[in-house]
C-alpha cells in the first residue's frame, strides 16, 4: 500500500507542469588521469556520458535555457558554433514532441523528431574537438 502511494506521488510529480523549460548545453568530454571533478550542472549527466561515450572528465562550454510553448519555435544557442532550432509539436502529460534541428554555424547537420520526457535528456554525439569529444545535451526541466 505504501509502495503504491509512493508510486502514485512519483507519477504525479513527474508529470509535465506549466512553465517547463528546455535546457541545452555544449559539453567537452575528455579522458584525464586523474579525472577532473564534474561541474555541478553536469553531475546528473556524467554517469551516462562515461558509460555511453567512454569519457571521465567534462567541461561545460556553454548552456542556454528557453521556455517550452506548444507550437512555438525556439532557437537554443549554447555556443556560437553549435545551436538548435526546436519546434514544440505537441505536449502530452509526460513528454513533449519536438522537432529538433542541430546546426553547426550555417550548416544544418541533423533533423530529429524526438519525444522528450522531463529529466530524461537527449545526448548528441558531436564532432571531436582537440583531444576530446563534443557532446550536446537537451533536457526538459
Amino acid at each position: 500500500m505504501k509502495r503504491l502511494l509512493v508510486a502514485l506521488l512519483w507519477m504525479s510529480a513527474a508529470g509535465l507542469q506549466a512553465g517547463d523549460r528546455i535546457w541545452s548545453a555544449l559539453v567537452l568530454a575528455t579522458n584525464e588521469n586523474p579525472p577532473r571533478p564534474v561541474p555541478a550542472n553536469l553531475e546528473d549527466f556524467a554517469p551516462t556520458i562515461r558509460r555511453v561515450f567512454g569519457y571521465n572528465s567534462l567541461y561545460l562550454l556553454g548552456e542556454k535555457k528557453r521556455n517550452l510553448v506548444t507550437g512555438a519555435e525556439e532557437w537554443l544557442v549554447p555556443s556560437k558554433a553549435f545551436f538548435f532550432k526546436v519546434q514544440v509539436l505537441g505536449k502530452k502529460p509526460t513528454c513533449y514532441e519536438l522537432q529538433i534541428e542541430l546546426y553547426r554555424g550555417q550548416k544544418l547537420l541533423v533533423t530529429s523528431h524526438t519525444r522528450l520526457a522531463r529529466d530524461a535528456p537527449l545526448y548528441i554525439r558531436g564532432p571531436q574537438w582537440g583531444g576530446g569529444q563534443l557532446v550536446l545535451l537537451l533536457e526538459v526541466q
Partner: protein
Amino acid sequence: MKNSDDREWEKTRNLLREHLTVPPLTNPDFINSRVLEAIEREERPRPAASGWSLRWLFWSGATALLMAGLLTAVLMPREFGLRSHDEFISQVISARAEMPQLSVTGFQVPDGRGVVLWMEGVDYIPAGEGVR
C-alpha cells in the same frame, strides 16, 4: 500593626451582624425546587459520547474521497489512469542526417530514461578553432 487590623476587622464584623439582615424570600418553595432541579441535573450521569460522530466523520470522508476519484475519472480520464513507465522515457522517433557524409542513429540510454543521437562523419575540429 496586625493586632490593630484584627481589632478593626472584629469591630466591622460585629457592626455587620447587627445591621445586616437577610431579606425575606417571597416564594421560597419555588426557589428551593429550582435549586433542587439544578443539583439533580448536575448529578445526573451524562450519556457517554457515542461512536456515531466518529463513524459519521469516517464515512463522510471516505464518500468524499470516492466522489473526488469518480469526478476525476469522469472529467479527466487521462490524468486518472496510472501511466506506464515507458511514458517517462525519451524516445527518438526519427532522425535524419542533412549532409551526405553524415550518418545518425538514435538509441535508448542503457538502464536510463535518456536517449542518444549518435552522429558519425562529422568533421574533426582542430583545438585552435573555437567552439564556444
